[in-house]
């Protein structure tokens, strides 16, 4: 594999890892699979489009505002919708997220139509290529994405391990009943998980839109990140990073050496293989799994 391919794999893995962390956060804390994650990520990118139109001269402000909106959007989704699904069958909660995804898609088209937007162009930013060693180059937005993914993962790991709210989140994920009896407010914890999850998704969506624009296809990228999260184990953050690397490598290799049409299906083939041999994923906890 040439070095350029390796660089491409790392960029794609960073995208999947950043988006996949959102699946893991929500699943780990509340055992809900959020199938609207791709759409939420897409809406995050469109928020940047809107804010870039408002503040074309102040990119940091637009980026910060869009990321904050992403965080608030996740909390709002929990407060308005998912809160009512606590204690319901897991499937009903998943179906609600599917319905939410459809709703978000419809609203996105109604507000922004189906055309492609380039928020980077509003800032007058050209996304210059970054030259790495030996002629290998990636775009600036991709480089930023890789760095951001590393920062987000580090931040999440520290947050979950050492901070008060992080410990509460882990406790709620391990045993909601005991956690609640110790005085942890589950609704707050769940809302925080949704907020953080959508925040990271919005970050990923924003950087992707700076790189290649945004249209409705971005939701598909979000869905393809799900196999990455599952391959590593749906309740393990380091697992999601490794899973992202595996899925990205398989996808790039298939595109390069077999057939470009495979791009959309390879993540799901990897998913099927993992489900067949090790359904709880590489790092997932085995006893929690809904297995026969």
């Amino acid at each position: 594999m040439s070095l350029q391919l390796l660089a491409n794999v790392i960029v794609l893995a960073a995208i999947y890892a950043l988006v996949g962390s959102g699946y893991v956060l929500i699943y780990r804390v509340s055992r809900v699979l959020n199938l609207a994650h791709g759409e939420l990520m897409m809406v995050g990118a469109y928020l940047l489009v809107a804010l870039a139109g408002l503040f074309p001269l102040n990119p940091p402000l637009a980026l910060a505002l869009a990321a904050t909106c992403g965080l608030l959007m996740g909390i709002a989704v929990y407060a308005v919708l998912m809160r009512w699904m606590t204690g319901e069958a897991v499937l009903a909660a998943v179906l609600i997220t599917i319905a939410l995804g459809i709703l978000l898609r419809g609203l996105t088209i109604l507000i922004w139509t189906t055309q492609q937007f380039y928020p980077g162009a509003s800032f007058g930013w050209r996304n210059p290529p970054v030259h790495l060693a030996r002629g290998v180059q990636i775009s600036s937005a991709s480089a930023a994405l890789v760095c951001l993914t590393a920062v987000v993962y580090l931040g999440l790991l520290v947050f979950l391990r050492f901070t008060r709210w992080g410990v509460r989140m882990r406790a709620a994920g391990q045993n909601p009943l005991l956690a609640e009896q110790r005085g942890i407010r589950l609704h707050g914890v769940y809302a925080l998980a949704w907020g953080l999850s959508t925040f990271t998704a919005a970050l990923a969506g924003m950087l992707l839109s700076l790189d290649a624009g945004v249209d409705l296809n971005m939701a598909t990228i979000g869905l393809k990140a799900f196999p990455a999260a599952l391959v590593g184990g749906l309740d393990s953050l380091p697992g999601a990073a490794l899973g992202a690397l595996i899925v990205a490598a398989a996808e790039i290799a298939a595109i390069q050496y077999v057939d470009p049409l495979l791009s959309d299906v390879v993540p799901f083939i990897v998913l099927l293989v993992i489900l067949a041999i090790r359904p709880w994923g590489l790092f997932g906890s085995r006893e929690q799994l809904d297995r026969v």
Partner: protein
Amino acid sequence: MSDRSALAKELSLFGTPARRLRLALAFAVLLVLPFLATPFQLDLLNQVLLASISALALMLLTGFAGLISLGTAGLLAAGAFTVGVLFREIAAPFWVTLPAAAAVGAALGLIFGLPSLRLRGLYLAISTLGLHFVVVYLGGEYEARQTLSTGIMVDSPSIGGFTVSSGRAWYFVLLAFAALALLISVNLRRTRTGRAWRALRERDVVAAALGINVTRFKLLAFVISAAMTATAGALFAYFRNFVSIDAFSLYLTVQYVAMIIIGGMGSLAGAILGAGFVVLFPYAIEAAAGYLPARFGNMVFALDYAAFGVVMILFLLLEPEGLLGLWHRLKNSLAARQSGAKSTTAPQ
């Protein structure tokens, strides 16, 4: 539109003492209906009948056996592409392609069902989702190989020298298939297989302890359901005279899942009601969009998406029993009001 509510009314009367009479009446109405309906209404009816077949199939799997599948669109695509490929490559007639589609569906059902032996719930749904993408890839790959960027054209089928192309002819063909699907479902439900599925749905460990062959009945549910769905896909190919992989997106699967939820989980009448609701919904939205500002008028499909999402959310949150639950609740509250009125007036 009035025709559908008549149909809904007939179906909701299942289980009353005069059941046979009602069934005969329903049958008579269904036979007369195509002669009263306009071509547009007839097309809607045909779409509902076609959707009912797969909705019934999904209800067997999810509503009866408790096995969750997100593979409906993939299976429909498999059936449609079996017809498309056989028609294009060897000009195979109706009576070859249809059994072939059912056989392909059954084989795929076996594959879709294998993960259910190890996984359940969410993880099973995910594995069928993965298989959906594999099937769709294969279809797209065939289209790309044949450089059929627009899809495959399929001629109308001819049965006994009679070409089925008019809306009315299709109505009777689809009615026959939907009735067959309903008959199969009713019979499966009331026999040994149905009882085994019900036990599986409640708790598969207990089912196994009761001596039910869990492996066999789980796979049987997948195979029967998938064969029915693929047959519906084959009919879809003939009905539209056209097969393209773009028609079989994940959204189609979601629509079928929505049918069995909106109709009423675990009930065959619910599957048909849900099919009617989901099929007619975009047309209702289109009609409503006529009253909205022009800006929304030319984005009907987006409006349809958003409204469908809202309706699905509302049903899941407020009425998980679906339309049937709504109907029972309405009936009960009416009865309660009547008896309440009686009891308040009685002492006077």
